[in-house]
């Protein structure tokens, strides 16, 4: 935007602008906000935006008609940051299957074939054919996904479409379409993008902070004894290697599993003398449910290979959800989702050894009265239902209870809700099966959302590679109906796939 005048919007002017339910060109001109044009705008710039833009490019929408508004320089940045904090090193494996290729809309060749090729090994292929009967699910390495996303981003011209900025608000444009108000990263100057259709994929608002941790931090200021699993907390591991200590792990999901693995590895490889107390709020002692709906479980954990049963991604569970009301979906999502981890042999063995050697123990209950004593140790009480609370002490607490669910912590989404966007029974954005926010339609313009903000719709695993691709496909299909692009039929799909194979621009 070198030719645009730099205008920093004063707070009062911004507030006045945001007070209008719909904008037109004269309103923005009066506020001296420069306007640029695009046919389709995606706000977020992470993997959610990437999936949609990738599909649209393959469906024939030119890069000159697309703009991606993002704080990040590349689509994988936010993913890589969160993954690293939750103990996923580049060579570690994700909880995702071979064909959930976020960089390849066709899912074939999958990550297993890619890994077999790059590592000159038949093992990935054997696993993908025999999973999950004779072997565990094949899951790709974090670095494979990042490398593939980088390749595809370059192929579709991501950098040409990228506008680095903070996106503040989406408003209906009088006469149809939308305006997106944004601020440049460098000088905070405001500009607006006028578009026909818009899409938002902002991801999670951030790590969830439990009330007891929040209260503790309020009393004592920064509290390094308490760490959130989704934020950098390397100091905890360093300290535990340096001197023996007791660590409390709270949570029973895949991130808790990874943290337990890291703590055990540090014991085995670096000689740490860590004692692990694992606190389960809901202890799962065994399989739960009737024979036709029984989820495996044991040792406190509920087990499933992925965060939702596979049938929720496109199979019969999704069929059922399509026909459900928002409340019914919320109920089903609670029973098929929730906190689960993968049953991996390596983890099973580590924890079995920990129980035997008494450096790992599971506790059932809730942590209460969390505080820090004069010596800097954490003090708390463990209470389980009616039983009297037991006092405990520990050196560290690692909180792996998940990410923030309140999507209105995103100012842009809160503003949308104020302007009429509906919420579903789970308190997320209410989207159609096409991922459109129907209540926000503006003339011929449509507003879409995908990712974590849309949980509770007809697709359960929205916040996954598969879900992002699935929603990208539905959005592209809906836009094809509006004449924006051509949904890939057999011939287009084949020719575009061949271009993908040869790494040629779509």
């Amino acid at each position, binding site marked *: 935007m070198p030719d645009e005048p730099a205008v920093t919007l004063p707070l009062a002017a911004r507030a006045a602008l945001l007070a209008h339910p719909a904008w037109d060109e004269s309103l923005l001109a009066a506020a001296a906000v420069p306007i640029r044009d695009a046919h389709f705008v995606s706000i977020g710039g992470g993997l959610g935006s990437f999936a949609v833009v990738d599909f649209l490019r393959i469906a024939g929408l030119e890069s000159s008609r697309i703009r991606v508004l993002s704080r990040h320089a590349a689509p994988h940045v936010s993913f890589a940051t969160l993954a690293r904090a939750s103990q996923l090193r580049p060579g570690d494996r994700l909880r995702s299957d071979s*064909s959930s290729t976020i960089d390849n809309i066709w899912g074939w060749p999958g990550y297993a074939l890619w890994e077999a090729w790059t590592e000159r090994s038949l093992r990935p292929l054997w696993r993908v054919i025999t999973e999950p009967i004779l072997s565990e699910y094949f899951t790709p390495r974090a670095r494979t996904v990042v490398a593939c996303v980088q390749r595809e981003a370059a192929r579709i011209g991501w950098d040409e479409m990228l506008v680095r900025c903070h996106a503040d608000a989406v408003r209906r444009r009088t006469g149809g379409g939308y305006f997106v108000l944004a601020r440049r990263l460098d000088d905070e100057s405001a500009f607006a993008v006028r578009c026909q259709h818009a899409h938002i994929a902002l991801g999670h608002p951030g790590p969830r902070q439990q009330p007891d941790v929040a209260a503790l931090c309020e009393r004592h200021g920064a509290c390094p004894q308490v760490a959130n699993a989704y934020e950098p907390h390397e100091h905890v591991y360093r300290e535990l290697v340096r001197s023996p200590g007791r660590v409390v792990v709270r949570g029973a999901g895949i991130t808790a599993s990874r943290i337990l693995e890291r703590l055990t590895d540090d014991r085995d490889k670096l000689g740490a003398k860590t004692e692990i107390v694992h606190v389960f709020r809901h202890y799962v002692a065994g399989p739960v449910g009737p024979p036709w709906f029984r989820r495996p479980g044991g040792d406190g954990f509920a087990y499933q290979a992925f965060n939702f049963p596979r049938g929720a991604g*496109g199979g019969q569970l999704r*069929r059922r959800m399509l026909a459900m009301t928002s409340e019914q979906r919320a109920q089903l999502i609670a029973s098929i989702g929730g906190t689960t981890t993968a049953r991996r042999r390596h983890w099973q063995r580590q924890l079995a050894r920990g129980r035997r050697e008494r450096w790992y123990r599971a506790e059932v209950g809730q942590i209460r009265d969390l505080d820090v004593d004069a010596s800097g140790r954490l003090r708390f009480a463990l209470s389980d239902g009616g039983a009297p609370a037991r006092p405990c002490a520990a050196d560290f607490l690692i909180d792996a209870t998940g990410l923030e669910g309140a999507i209105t912590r995103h100012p842009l989404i809160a503003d949308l809700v104020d302007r009429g966007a509906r919420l579903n029974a789970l308190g997320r954005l209410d989207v159609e099966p096409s991922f459109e926010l129907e209540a926000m339609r503006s003339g011929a313009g449509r507003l879409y959302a995908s990712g974590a903000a849309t949980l509770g719709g007809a697709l359960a695993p929205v916040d996954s590679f598969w879900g992002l691709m699935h929603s990208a496909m539905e959005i592209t299909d809906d836009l094809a109906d509006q004449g924006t692009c051509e949904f890939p039929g057999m011939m287009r*799909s084949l020719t575009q796939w061949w271009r993908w194979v040869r790494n040629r621009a779509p």
Partner: protein
Amino acid sequence: MVALGEEPGAVTMTLGGRLQTRLVLLSSIGLLWTLAISAVLPRPGGVPVLAAFRITLASSVAMTVLGFFWELLYHALQQLRWDKDWPPLFGLVTGLVEVVPVWWIVRALDILPDGCTALFGVHFGTTWILVWLITLGPISVLQPRWRFEGGGFSRRPGDALATFVVANMGMVIALVLLWSVW
């Protein structure tokens, strides 16, 4: 959360998707494969090439028609799995079960001359493995929607009839060819 890439992937079949996939693949790729290899399959001297076509086409049709019943059974068994999926290995080994009634039918039709067991076996086995390999991924290259629709081919759930008609074309061709070589 997406940072950990947690997700159910691959295709997980719905009942409609199972039936469509069986019909479409066997009556397109399966049929082409059958036509391509029938003449070169190992057969004893004295058995005419038409007899080979008769065997392979009859078992192709039987594989498809009986498949409808098998798919109902597989769908019922799938209900016992928490993931409501059908792992790739199941798709491969069910061929060992399905070959039995097809064999009975071909025997009952009295179109199998002595010494043609290998012909039958090679045709059934290769067709089965080919179709199975295609469902493991390549099919999505032609139909990106397929894996997101539980194995269905329709663009929208309501378009199933059109798909059914198109998918049946291959089967009609197979039946006409079979009739003409009878």
